């Protein structure tokens, strides 16, 4: 989230799209309703009329997978009706930048496309620069190659008729939504966008969020209280685990994972440290070398010296272009690449698409370690449906993990606030905290290498690992390591501004620096003081970075540092004291209009936000492409059906526009169950409320198929089948798409074969192996199925 949970309560208009906040983030919905009580308009755009829709002033249905068309139409509406916040757009975004002559867009493709590689040469999308290397601009926004005009041209095709035909949203609903949200383009009006997996889980997911971001920039809503682009994330520490880089493509705090061609630390720093010729840009990532060297010092301690590149060569490196994300990982596993697999607190046999493929892949392993609080469908895959244990060679070690209240440490919410959880009791039985298990496992592996030697033992033997007291990991010592030390004094650094690239500081994760310094554990603070009156709670927990509660807050003021919206001021420049007051500003320099002033978007080398985003894999402007599996034979907007830059998994089965699978399916979540349901399906209270898998079907489709409410049906895709109870409902309505009626169905993926009895299987037996072009997040939200009534069986 750019903003935070309580901040939602200050908005004038909330666009909830790709999220069913009322059911999946119920307590966050409280702040949506608080805003509504104060007069805010609530908009819900979703394939299904949910409990979120019931609280909305405007509900608009759409076809799953068509959001870019919907949002592209809004961009056109804002431009055509001149509803942008012009001063913001001209000064704080790259709308005025002139794009080079090699940029083009034709027939659904941007210039530079290589169909064999399914990739673009992004150099063709470069911004034109002057002799000093500063982007050329036209502040009047009239130049035919300025970003604003190119955007206007790009979205000219997204007229109401076309958008309505793609999305199935009635035209009058489109206009209602556009009008209400675009009204927040006034400087003192503000709108927020709240999204969740309905936006991320598509082949064009990243571009959904880009489209939302472009709208927020055009309306001047980023950096404002009650504004921003806000991901309602799923798991309680998903923000923290992302920050700590339990991902293949980054090392902690958003530094790129090194690649084969990054042959030395110098080359790495050179390649990944952005430079700028723009004198008014803060270009914060210029400090990357300090963060990477300090990270290496936290990894390898005194062994990391200037002479050995701070042990940079000990970090594992991917090949250039190698993708090690889930879909590739399980494909490699199925081919027998891995002998061993560690699964900590996850249930991929229910959560990864085409789950049958995952289950088979696990049987190719020699051994698997599963660390969890319950037996689960992954630990017991060898005993699952269609498996013959006698033929599964995989050894499984199932280690009992402690519960969150049985240990101490911090978690980071979706609004980037770190909170400290205290330990209530000791782990029950023989269970142990996950961190303790990792510690003991590391000590055993290290001892083996000490005793026997082995391949390249240095990174293991010389790892800095001094977090235990009497054999028990001390989370405070780890939290301090993450915060970082001044190694010359041995004191904790106050925050990341004190980090250096010469090996005299250490820091495990620079964005968390300041969370546990010499003043104490900031994450454990519980002070509810709200001095600004806009719910920033600066002494409650710690928000990264540097306790900033609203990101990009330098964009919440005009060029002289006065808030666009004085009644909800996030920061303000005090001209007398020559400093900012309010939230922790995005850097101390004065506002851009004053002497020594700096541009507002400090993480961008150009200092402004990117309406034109030439860094993404699939184009600088979001463009509508159909999901991999679509009900349409043709993309109404261009000859390109699928996102041309997303990798294909050709050995997997797909069925697009196939009469055998005529219905659009989307997967959903329930209040009472969570993710694959492993932490809820064992709970009798929750299972009583939601006992088994069901599928929501419109009354029209039910009539066509002779299905009654409560009937057992079979939902099938080309990959698998799931039995479910039919829930015949008005919540889903057929939509008129491209001239014909399209049916959509929805089913939750929080069940699995293990528990409860008769609860049903994971809906991910149905979902396709394909992901977003930038993130590879799978397309769980739009695929094609058939639904048939299941003949009555005995005992039912």
């Amino acid at each position, binding site marked *: 989230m750019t903003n935070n949970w309580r901040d939602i309560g200050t908005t004038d208009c909330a666009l909830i799209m790709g999220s069913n906040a009322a059911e999946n983030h119920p307590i966050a919905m409280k702040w949506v309703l608080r805003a509504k009580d104060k007069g805010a308009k609530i908009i819900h755009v979703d394939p299904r009329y949910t409990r979120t829709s019931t609280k909305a002033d405007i509900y608009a249905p759409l076809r799953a997978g068509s959001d870019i068309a919907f949002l592209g139409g809004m961009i056109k509406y804002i431009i055509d009706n001149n509803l942008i916040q012009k001063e913001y757009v001209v000064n704080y975004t790259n709308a005025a930048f002139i794009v080079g002559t090699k940029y083009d867009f034709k027939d659904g493709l941007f210039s530079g496309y290589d169909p064999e590689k399914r990739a673009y040469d992004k150099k063709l999308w470069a911004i034109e620069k002057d002799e000093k290397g500063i982007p050329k601009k036209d502040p009047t926004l009239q130049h035919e190659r300025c970003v604003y005009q190119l955007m206007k041209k790009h979205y000219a095709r997204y007229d109401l008729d076309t958008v309505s035909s793609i999305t199935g949203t009635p035209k009058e609903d489109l206009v209602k939504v556009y009008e209400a949200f675009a009204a927040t383009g006034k400087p003192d009006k503000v709108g927020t966008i709240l999204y969740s997996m309905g936006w991320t889980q598509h082949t064009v997911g990243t571009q959904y969020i880009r489209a939302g971001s472009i709208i927020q920039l055009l309306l001047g809503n980023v950096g404002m209280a009650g504004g921003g682009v806000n991901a309602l994330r799923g798991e309680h520490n998903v923000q*923290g685990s992302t920050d700590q880089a339990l991902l293949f493509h980054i090392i902690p705090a958003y530094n790129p994972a090194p690649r084969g061609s990054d042959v030395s630390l110098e080359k790495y720093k050179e390649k990944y440290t952005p430079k700028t010729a723009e004198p008014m840009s803060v270009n914060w990532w210029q400090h990357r070398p300090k963060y990477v060297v300090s990270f290496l010092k936290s990894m390898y301690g005194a062994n990391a010296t200037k002479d050995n590149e701070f042990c940079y060569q000990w970090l594992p490196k991917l090949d250039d272009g190698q993708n090690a994300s889930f879909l590739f990982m399980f494909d490699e596993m199925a081919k027998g690449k891995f002998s061993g697999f560690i699964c900590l607190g996850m249930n991929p046999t229910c959560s990864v698409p085409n789950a049958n493929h995952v289950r088979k892949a696990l049987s190719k392993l020699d051994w698997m370690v599963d660390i969890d609080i319950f037996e689960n469908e992954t630990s017991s895959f060898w005993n699952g449906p269609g498996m013959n244990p006698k033929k599964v060679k995989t*050894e499984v070690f199932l280690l009992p993990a402690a519960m969150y209240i049985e240990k101490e440490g911090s978690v980071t919410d979706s609004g980037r606030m770190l909170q400290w959880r205290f330990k209530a009791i000791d782990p029950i039985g023989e269970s142990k905290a996950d961190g303790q298990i990792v510690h003991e496992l590391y000590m055993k592996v290290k001892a083996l290498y000490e005793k026997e030697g082995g*391949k390249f033992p240095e990174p293991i033997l010389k790892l800095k690992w001094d977090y235990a007291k009497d054999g028990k990991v001390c989370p405070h010592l780890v939290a301090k390591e993450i915060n970082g030390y001044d190694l010359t004094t041995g004191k904790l650094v106050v925050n990341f501004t004190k980090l250096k690239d010469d090996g005299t500081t250490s820091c495990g994760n620079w964005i968390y620096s300041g969370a546990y310094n010499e003043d104490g554990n900031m994450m454990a603070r519980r002070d509810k003081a709200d001095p600004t009156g806009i719910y920033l709670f600066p002494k409650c927990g710690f928000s990264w970075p540097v306790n900033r509660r609203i990101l990009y807050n330098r964009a919440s003021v005009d060029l002289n540092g006065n808030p666009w919206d004085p009644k909800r001021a996030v920061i303000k420049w005090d001209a007398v004291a020559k400093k900012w007051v309010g939230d922790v500003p995005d850097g101390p320099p004065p506002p851009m209009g004053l002497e020594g002033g700096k541009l507002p978007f400090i993480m961008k080398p150009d200092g402004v936000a990117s309406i034109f985003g030439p860094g993404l894999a699939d184009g600088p402007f979001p463009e509508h492409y159909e999901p991999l599996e679509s009900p349409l034979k043709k993309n109404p907007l261009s000859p390109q059906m699928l996102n041309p830059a997303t990798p294909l998994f050709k050995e997997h089965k797909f069925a697009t526009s196939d009469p055998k699978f005529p219905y659009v399916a989307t997967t959903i979540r329930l209040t009472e169950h969570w993710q694959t349901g492993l932490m809820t399906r064992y709970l009798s209270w929750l299972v009583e409320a939601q006992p088994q898998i069901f599928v929501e079907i419109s009354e029209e489709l039910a009539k066509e198929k002779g299905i009654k409410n409560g009937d057992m049906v079979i939902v099938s895709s080309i990959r698998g089948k799931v039995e479910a109870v039919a829930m015949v409902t008005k919540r889903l309505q057929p939509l008129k798409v491209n001239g014909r009626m399209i049916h959509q169905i929805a089913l939750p993926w929080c069940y699995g074969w293990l528990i409860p009895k008769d609860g049903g299987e994971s809906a991910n037996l149905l979902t396709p192996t394909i992901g977003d072009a930038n993130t590879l997040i799978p397309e769980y939200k739009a695929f094609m199925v058939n639904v048939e009534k299941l003949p009555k069986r005995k005992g039912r």
Partner: protein
Amino acid sequence: MNVTRRDFMKISGVAVAGATLSQLGFDLTPVQAYTAELRIKGAKETTSVCCYCSVGCGQIVHTSGGKVINIEGDPDQPTSEGSLCAKGAGAYELVTNPKRLTKVMYRAPNSSKWEVKSWDWALNEIAKRIKKSRDKSFTEKNAKGEVVNRCDGMAAIGSTHINNEECWLYQKFLRSLGLVYIEHEARL
């Protein structure tokens, strides 16, 4: 008015009970307040954060004699102000669940059953397998001759369910082994 959390609960409990029950002609208010107080009387309070979604609602865990006896919303936490959803409000049944794993389990190759094992045995055996997999698959240089120092024969996933400090230790451990196939739910 300065109201402590417990005072607040008493007042609001009284108000709600009074409003509903007195309409029926009974006033059970004192009984309600007494029983509500009794359940957690003398219990130790520990603040926590809910383990489900990413809203980060505050919880108070009541314990007595080393056992959890109650979990409820924390009114002093500003995001949730004491509210919890159905899952968070059910956290008591999660942490006290009789089906939780309490022992190390092992399933041998081609076996049809779990066996109970000791931690020491399991950690030793796992360490041997990690070493064997790593030594067998360790790649110092890739096909282009670039130094990559990675372990190609193992993958690891997880987890959004562990604390930041645990995440940091886990990534450190995995990267020390040379793993590059590291993933977790953030990409799902």
